[in-house]
């Protein structure tokens, strides 16, 4: 019996799947599109890099959540000791946490570069204004994700940086609104365990779900309008 080429095995599997659902057609429609010549430039890749970095964040975030304990009660708090455990004891924990940390930093830079490209090529103009707004919303979400993630290690730097941030939010005029925002973010009169619980919930459940939803909308818009020509 002749040894089959790997492609024959691949085709057999794909055919089996296609008989049950048109996967090939769905993937072709979703992924394959001619890239116009004007888009064959490195700065048109910034958006894709943002997507890759967000995927990294989601993957490493899930991995970190395997060991992270969102509990700020006690001294040292489990939140702090669990981060130390990830960093120093878990196999390759330093790598996973490092990728999460540096990807988060790089993500903000790449989002700004992507937005700069969109701005300088005039890609925000009609009929793409709504997609620009979706992009701006995602920038804000990325910033809030960074802010909420900063508190999670529950070390001195995280604590006081978040206290300053919340104080700034608390200065929103009029005074009553500022105080309301401050109390709402803190979950109490001071930055404490309820604050960590709230930031953790936002960072892990609410914001990632929102950003994935907005990414889907963003991509659908791009598919609908195509890649914009430069000015």
């Amino acid at each position, binding site marked *: 019996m*002749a*040894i089959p*080429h790997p492609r024959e095995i691949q085709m057999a599997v794909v055919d089996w799947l296609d008989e049950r659902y048109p996967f090939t057609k769905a993937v072709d429609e979703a992924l394959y599109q001619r890239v116009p010549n004007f888009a064959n430039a490195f700065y048109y890749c910034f958006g894709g890099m943002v997507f890759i970095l967000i995927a990294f964040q989601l993957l490493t975030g899930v991995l970190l959540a395997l060991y992270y304990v969102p509990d700020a009660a006690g001294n040292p708090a489990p939140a702090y000791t669990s981060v130390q455990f990830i960093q120093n004891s878990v*196999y390759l*924990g330093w*790598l*996973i946490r490092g990728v999460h940390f540096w990807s988060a930093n790089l993500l903000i830079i790449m989002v700004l570069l992507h937005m700069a490209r969109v701005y300088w090529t005039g890609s925000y103009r009609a009929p793409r204004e709504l997609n620009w707004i979706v992009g701006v919303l995602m920038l804000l979400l990325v910033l809030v994700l960074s802010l909420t993630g900063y508190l999670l290690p529950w070390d001195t730097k995280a604590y006081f940086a978040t206290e300053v941030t919340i104080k700034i939010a608390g200065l929103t005029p009029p005074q009553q609104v500022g105080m309301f925002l401050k109390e709402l973010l803190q979950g109490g009169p001071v930055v404490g365990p309820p604050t960590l619980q709230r930031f953790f919930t936002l960072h892990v459940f609410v914001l990632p779900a929102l950003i994935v939803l907005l990414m889907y909308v963003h991509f659908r818009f791009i598919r609908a309008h195509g890649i914009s020509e430069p000015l």
Partner: protein
Amino acid sequence: MAEALAPRRVTRRTFLGWWLASLLTATVITGLAPILVYFWPAPPKGQKKGPINIALQTPIDQLQDGNAVKFDAPRSPNSAFIMADGGGDNAPGELAFGGYVVNNQGKVNVFAINCSHLGCSVALNEAAKTFDCPCHGSRFRLDGTVLHGPAEFPLSHLTWKQGPNPSAIEVDGIVLGF
């Protein structure tokens, strides 16, 4: 001559196909390996085996015939006892978080608290002088043997020795390190 005309079993194209497929597989495995390593539980720091000192509520010399006294593994540091024997759900080397010191006709035994059926904690039935499991109704005599199923194996012993006073015993255990 006939051999030369026979179809080649592995063509160059097939060989290159498999070579590329192997390379792709190796690349994927290399990418996934750190994640799999990360999943593996880290060794707890400060984990060590050794005797655990237990203070009994009733000193052994005051334990009446047919009576038992319960004890728990210390929580600080978080510890557990090591079973010396066992069958069913229990096995030598498995951990228990409590136990009973029993005076059965003058002989003192120390049992792990785990039922040999599925590991629930047994409770002393003072009236019937038995250990009863609240989960599935297994019952054990004070010498640890099965009185009533579904458990099929006796209670596990813990290795122990008398401490410096009648209220103290040393039981083989482990500091868990977390």
